[in-house]
């Protein structure tokens, strides 16, 4: 079992760079394209005089991406500006100051390294005849040639291939020396701690659910934009590093991510709550002498770990890839951010579980549950809403990493319904009685 897990883990080191290479050849619009935004820098009433203001903005850029910006004034003329761009984690800074005639020309910035940058602009303008002066800036970033990354990912793929091959050979050779299998029918005959451990091992190995979760981790990596360019909206008064981690966490996302997450959750529910009734988990629970209530909670915990782990790992992987210096420089903040994402993701998966597990009681056959829930997902759930509000809840909780309490407050009828469904599901599953295993 541990050997299989180690082999699967080694395969990841081969597949991850291959997935990233595939993205280089088939990039998403966001990766190739340009992010464009308009930001208010200065708005002041200054009849006939000078006004000034400043502005700062975080940016996620990759090596050799190019940033341009432009400012324009309504009711006033730009007199001077000062722009500074700094790499947040390394502190590398680039500055430019323009006055008078040059204030109509704006610099172009080429990113020498990957990561979060801070753009700071201070501007002075001469107001016109009267009324308000408004200065607006527009930002755009163009993706660079990704040839350098292709070389890096190819090298990584070679390392991964070597590691996977050596792991496979070693585990195969050793596996021939000692082979031990636990069939469910033999589990009952094992005694003591050894028997318990064997049953636990069988439980985690059953049906290869963990393999599916490894695969889902890869699916997340393949749908996330490795080269996402981000110019976020400002988020109130928050420490810059915290804001940077939130920018990284929310950039590690994809439009199809909620569907993948929901399908993964659905698959796990169908196996843990439907299939187990037919055979498998319930039998092991019975052999272990665990009550249905504790069995239900054990399955719930298994579900939460298996659903949230791939998602949070994929996000953490991208955060590390984008700005490792920021992570190693602020490990506690990194852990706090990942923890926050994890809590929110767990809440989302709990929310889904409440509905899906109740549905699994009503439709106890695996296929019935899969069809019913997936039809609901495809037909009724939309970006604007749906019976479960799956997309909006996911976006706020997992992508935007909003405060969980505010999301629950915003969608309180849905969360109240989820709570009711979850309690009903627990009650029904526990009360339905013990299966008479032969």
């Amino acid at each position, binding site marked *: 079992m541990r*050997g299989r897990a*180690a082999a699967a*883990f080694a395969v990841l080191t081969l597949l991850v760079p291959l997935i990233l290479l595939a993205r280089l050849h088939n990039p998403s619009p966001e990766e190739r394209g340009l992010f464009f935004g308009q930001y208010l820098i200065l708005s002041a009433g200054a009849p006939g005089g000078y006004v000034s203001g400043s502005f700062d903005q975080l940016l996620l850029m990759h090596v050799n991406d190019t940033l341009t910006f432009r400012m324009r004034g309504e009711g006033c003329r730009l007199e001077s500006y000062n722009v500074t761009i700094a790499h947040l984690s390394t502190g590398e800074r680039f500055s430019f100051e323009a006055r008078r005639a040059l204030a109509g020309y704006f610099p*172009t910035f080429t990113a020498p390294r990957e990561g979060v940058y801070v753009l700071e602009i201070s501007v002075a303008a001469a107001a016109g005849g009267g009324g308000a002066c408004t200065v607006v800036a527009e930002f755009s970033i163009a993706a660079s040639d990704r040839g350098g990354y292709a070389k890096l990912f190819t090298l990584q793929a070679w390392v991964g291939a070597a590691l996977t091959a050596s792991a496979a050979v070693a585990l195969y050779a050793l596996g021939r020396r000692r082979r031990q299998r636990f069939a469910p029918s033999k589990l009952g005959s094992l005694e003591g701690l050894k028997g318990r451990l064997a049953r636990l091992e069988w439980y985690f190995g059953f049906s290869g659910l963990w393999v599916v979760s490894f695969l889902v981790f890869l699916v997340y990596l393949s749908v996330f934009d490795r080269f996402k360019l981000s110019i976020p909206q400002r988020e109130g008064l928050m420490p810059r590093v915290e804001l940077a981690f939130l920018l990284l966490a929310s950039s590690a996302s994809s439009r199809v991510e909620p569907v993948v997450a929901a399908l993964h959750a659905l698959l796990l529910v169908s*196996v843990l709550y439907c299939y187990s009734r037919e055979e498998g988990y319930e039998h092991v629970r019975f052999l272990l002498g665990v009550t249905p209530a504790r069995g239900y909670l054990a399955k719930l915990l298994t579900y939460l770990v298996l659903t949230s782990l791939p998602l949070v790992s994929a996000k953490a992987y991208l955060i590390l890839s984008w700005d490792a210096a920021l992570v190693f420089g602020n490990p506690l903040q990194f852990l706090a951010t990942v923890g926050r994402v994890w809590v929110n993701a767990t809440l989302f998966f709990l929310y889904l579980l409440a509905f899906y597990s109740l549905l699994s009681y009503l439709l106890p056959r695996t296929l019935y549950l899969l069809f019913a829930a997936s039809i609901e997902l495809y037909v009724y759930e939309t970006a604007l809403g749906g019976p479960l509000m799956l997309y909006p809840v996911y976006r706020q909780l997992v992508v935007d990493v909003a405060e969980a309490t505010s999301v629950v407050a915003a969608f309180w009828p849905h969360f109240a319904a989820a709570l009711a469904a979850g309690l009903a599901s627990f009650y029904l599953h526990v009360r339905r009685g013990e299966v008479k295993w032969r």
Partner: protein
Amino acid sequence: MGIALLFMIQSALAVSCCNSASTTGPYGDAVATTACAEIYGTSEFDSYGAAIVFIYQNPIFEGAFLKYEVSVFGQPKTEPLISHAKELFESLKVPLGKTLFLVTLQNATGGTKATAFDTSGELVMPGGPASLCGVFWSSDRISIQVTVETMSGSAYTVNYSVIFSNFSAIGLEKTCKMLPELISPPSEIKGGYLVWRRDSLTLSKKIIVNVSNWNAVDADSGRSLGEWLFWLSPFDLSVNYTLILAGINLHVTAGITPNLSGFVGYVLYLNASNTASRDYVVGGADIKRARTLVAYSYPLAHMYEKVLRAGRVSEEFKSIMRRYGCSVVQHPNSTVEVFCEAFSRAASHIERWKAWKVVPVSMQIDPNLFRTFAAIKYSGLYLAMYPIDFYTFVYDRQTGLLLEASHDPSVESWWGHAILPSAYLSFGNYTLSFKVLNGLINAKLVETNIPLQTPSLGSPGRAEADPAYALLAASAALATAAAIARRWR
């Protein structure tokens, strides 16, 4: 379990197509981005709320000039016409230049209909009384020069010149009698043909550009000649989506309904999130592609479609439509509706700012198909927005200057109508319309006295080792070692 796994993988693959760029085409990226941004409720791309008049520090000044070199690229689409032209040039012993056009002299009022050209060899290509004359027009080198002569608060006066070097042309004497008055007297008349041979021919026009609506007007006749294309209006520079009327083709009939004038208008869709695929260098100034804006021909003729009994709509079709800013709604009774919201929204906003507008023309094509076409109302003409020729226009985001205007190489143009140099060449009641025969046309800004150089910050770097991967590889090695050690015991 197996079925469940298969189901999950298939579903994941199906949904990932939205995120992939498997569908090719130049229009899609930003449109898809936009559509998805709209779908997912982000506001980054919707800036019409900010569409107010901004006072730019205008880079254009009196005496400013822009010089474009025109070249031909790609493969010819009209081999029979080229063969015929070559034979004619050889038989009359006229040198044939690198670029070959079929130039038609059109009645600029556009009151009559033209028909498709005849490839039988007769030089009077477009039929109908409006197409008075067709000329094989050849040149080795073509340049376009735009000079700002005067500017006021309400208008620019611009001199627009097209210079043909090593120019030669052949036209039928009986149909092209008025052409010598418009361009220059022919070098000779041979075998019923007017023959021109010049070291250089310059066609010049004085254009007045109205600053309030960006309409270009012929200074001599006062006739509207289309939207000004050589630098963007403050409105176009301040919004995320806009439409540009790039040209009018009086050469092609487009009769959607009898109410239309029957000609084609070329509309470019500009999404400010779109950049060119390469950097530009103009007069030593390096313009990074992040500094560019690209406008593409809008590839659809309609803005709404309803199909009854359409059956199942494929995900691929939905994906393509999404790339054009359209959403597809499939009703349970198998009726399918296509809404092109991005285009409609841009169309509704340009009404206030431009001298033309989009007029919806709704038609029942057949009992099962209902469409709302986008017609263009401009200066007394109702034009159809038929996508028959495709263009890309690249602008500098900072100054708004046109950097490159070209046929779109990724989409096949049917007629080869060359917006440049055709635009603004109006003489009295006639216009000269250029159709490139030996490839596709490209006009590139090569020189200007408008400052384009901007300061440069930062420096090129190289991709560094991926720490997440290193961590993963180390963990995998550790896990494998632990597994081996355990089994060894």
